């Protein structure tokens, strides 16, 4: 009589030992060439055509695919599957079509996905346990890649003849390589025998280049071109790639800039050549720069050599630079270290400097957090900031006070501070100017904010207080998702220690923003010594949202009107033009009637480009 265990045993003894999910299907077809296993809940053989449908699947080595329908032609041995999805070597993949003939399986127009990475290949050949991709287009959050062919491996992709670009479309900026390895787990692409091309011209040919796939590229455009009392052109921050450096993570950069070349020699006009080499590595930065310059004093050129050297390494900070105020070289060496045992934070420092004075400073800068409380959305804090500086040649300088803050979520914030100083700071490094401050902001989506601040200014060369600057501000605003509208008033008053007013500036501003575009109308007013009227100017500026598509462009105009003289005081326009890869900017600003103290009539042309 029929016995089931025996039948099963016989069945398996017959050699059908299948493994994997596909083998558990209701109906299974083993094909020897290509070596695949087909499975489905339903099967039909009509004439020479076998069709699998209903949770159809296909398994070949590591490849496990699901399909809507799999068709096997008995006579030709050809295999066709439709609407494929599945996994391979850690990737999920899908394709509208799969063909199998001879020993190979071929996916047409396949899409592989792993995390943020998406690979598209016009053809994927599964053969001998490997997946060979042809015409690969890959996209990560930051890059687009194209490769002629590649091999999918566990957690990665090895490609040949790869081209990568951060451009949204087109290939204006491109990295290509003979060979490259994607390591998606580490988010890296290692390019070998590569070339960096801009508009098809190879700028560099590094042998090995590492690209971080998900990090934003630090591609500051290094070329500079502008005009304003002479031409400015050259390179600024031009990367000098080293072997095995990540692309866009260059540690060494060069600046070589000609400034103010040509144009009529007016008093104060400066012509210079700026050279600087910077190197930044973990916790350390070094810059070596020189700037030979000459300035027209009305009768002759006065030449000088401005150094620009800085070394920072852990607690050490050495600077050798040029002080425009002192018109001479200044130097300093600072040693500092921060300790933060709560509630204290201490930063002792030792410094030797040659600035407006020369000497040594030993001191400590820090704060005590007296109160840090949170209760629900309420937050309260009270801190005691302080600084103490000791000089071998002079009396010590001390500064300290109290600063408190109270906040409720983002609806209310009140802050106040009061500080006193004793003695005179000898150098700007340790000088603390702030004396009194008060801030208040309340409301949402409509808000009001008030502010007041008083700061002391020192003349380090003369060794005394030079000024007290006070600023007052009021702002009313309303913001919602689409945009905002604000009206504000700001007043800045500069007084001598004795109380005499030496300068006042005031600004009334009405600003509207909608999305990324904005319109501003401002009224600038200024007074000189003892409230003598200085200027009164209306300024109107419109900044459109940046263009989004390739070929898109925007114009940002601005205009100033001198209310006293009744004429245009300034005008500007900036053209932004997008191509596939870059946003190009060409800007013009002209000052026809100088308004602000120190402002001179003149024209400036700026040229800039950035990666979109």
């Amino acid at each position, binding site marked *: *009589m029929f016995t089931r265990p*025996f039948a099963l045993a016989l069945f398996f003894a*017959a050699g*059908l030992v299948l493994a994997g999910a596909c083998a558990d299907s*209701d109906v299974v077809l*083993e*094909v*020897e060439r290509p070596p695949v296993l087909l499975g489905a809940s339903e*099967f039909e053989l009509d004439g020479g055509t076998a069709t699998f449908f209903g949770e159809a699947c296909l398994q070949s080595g590591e490849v496990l695919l699901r399909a809507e329908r799999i068709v096997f032609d008995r006579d030709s041995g050809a295999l066709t599957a439709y609407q494929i999805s599945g996994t391979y070597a850690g990737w999920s993949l899908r394709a509208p079509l799969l063909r199998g003939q001879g020993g190979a399986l071929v996916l047409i127009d396949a899409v592989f996905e792993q995390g943020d990475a998406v690979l598209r290949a016009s053809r994927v050949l599964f053969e001998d346990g490997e997946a060979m991709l042809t015409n690969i287009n890959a996209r990560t959050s930051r890059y687009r890649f194209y490769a002629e062919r590649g091999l999918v491996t566990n957690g990665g992709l090895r490609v040949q003849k790869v081209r990568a670009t951060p451009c949204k479309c087109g290939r204006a900026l491109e990295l290509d390589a003979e060979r490259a390895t994607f390591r998606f787990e580490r988010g890296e692409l290692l390019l070998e025998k590569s070339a960096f091309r801009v508009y098809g011209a190879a700028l560099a040919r590094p042998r090995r280049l590492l690209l971080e796939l998900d990090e934003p590229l630090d591609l500051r455009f290094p070329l500079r071109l502008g005009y304003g009392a002479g031409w400015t052109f050259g390179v600024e921050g031009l990367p000098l790639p080293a072997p095995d450096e990540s692309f866009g993570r260059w540690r060494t950069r060069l600046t070589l800039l000609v400034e103010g070349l040509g144009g009529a020699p007016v008093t104060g006009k400066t012509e210079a050549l700026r050279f600087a080499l910077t190197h930044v590595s973990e916790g350390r930065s070094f810059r070596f720069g020189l700037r030979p310059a000459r300035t027209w004093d009305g009768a002759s050129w006065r030449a000088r050599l401005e150094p620009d050297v800085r070394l920072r390494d852990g607690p050490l900070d050495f600077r050798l630079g040029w002080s425009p105020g002192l018109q001479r070289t200044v130097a300093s060496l600072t040693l500092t270290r921060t300790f933060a045992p709560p509630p204290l934070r201490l930063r002792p420092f030792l410094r030797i400097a040659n600035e407006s004075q020369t000497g040594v400073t030993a001191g400590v800068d820090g704060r005590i957090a007296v109160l840090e409380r949170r209760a629900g959305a309420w937050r309260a804090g009270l801190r005691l900031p302080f600084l103490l500086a000791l000089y071998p040649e002079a009396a010590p300088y001390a500064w300290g006070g109290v600063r408190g803050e109270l906040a409720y979520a983002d609806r209310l914030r009140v802050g106040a501070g009061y500080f006193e100083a004793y003695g005179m700071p000898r150098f700007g490094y340790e000088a603390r100017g702030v004396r009194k401050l008060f801030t208040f902001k309340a409301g949402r989506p409509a808000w009001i904010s008030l502010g007041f601040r008083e700061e002391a200014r020192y003349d380090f060369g003369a060794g005394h207080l030079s000024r007290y600057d006070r600023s007052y501000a009021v702002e009313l605003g309303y913001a919602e998702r689409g945009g905002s509208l604000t009206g504000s008033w700001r007043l800045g008053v500069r007084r001598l220690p004795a109380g005499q007013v030496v300068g006042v500036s005031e600004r009334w501003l009405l600003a509207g923003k909608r999305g990324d575009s904005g319109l501003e109308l401002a009224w600038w007013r200024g007074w000189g010594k003892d409230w003598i009227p200085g200027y009164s100017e209306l300024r109107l500026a419109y900044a459109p949202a940046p263009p989004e598509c390739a070929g898109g462009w925007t114009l940002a105009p601005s205009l100033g009107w001198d209310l006293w003289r009744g004429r245009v005081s300034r005008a500007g326009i900036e053209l932004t033009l997008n191509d596939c890869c870059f946003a190009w900017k060409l800007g013009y600003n002209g000052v026809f009637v100088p308004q602000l103290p120190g402002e001179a009539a003149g024209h400036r042309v700026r040229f800039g480009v950035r990666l979109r």
Partner: protein
Amino acid sequence: MKRAGMLIFLLLVAARFAALSIEPYGDQVFDLATGVTTLPQGGVIHDNENDLSIDAGYVEYKEDVYVLARKARSEAKDIRFAAEKLRYDLPEQLVSLAEGVVLDTAQVKELKAQNAWIFIEAGVAVLQGGVQAADPELQAAALVSDYRTGEVLLLAPYRYHDAGLGITLAGKNPDKQLYLKFDSKTDEVSASSKVPPEIKKRLLGFVERVKARKTP
């Protein structure tokens, strides 16, 4: 004289079974108590009504009830079969086969199984236990064949191998049968996991019917 008398007796006996005709190879022993006739040397039995012949090395039968045969080779309309043990139940016209069962139908040749049942009138054969065939090369837990219409049902687990094409079709789900339809004219086979409901009901009905039956 004695031998001539025996022959006359035999002819009389044969004549008494209108449906079955008996051609013994040797002796024929009739047990008056049970009504069972034994052919110890075997013989050929013809069921004229159903065009069935059984050629066996040993036969016993009881008129209108059954035929029991050992080392039997048989032929009926559209089917040939052989087995070590054969029982033919006359009222049901059901042949039960056990041990060394081999069947040949128009569609499947050298079909072997542990047990088989043939419903002569319906033209349906049910095979169970290690079912396998050489042409086409297949294995199944059980097989039901309507050998006149060419409809075959393979019960899982089943396996079908085509060496020429290098393919093997298999099914493991006991609730899913593979339905094969042989076209006698074109010699082509169509197959599907979707069995037309009326065919499924009819053919699986025969499987149900043999479940309770004893093997010969």
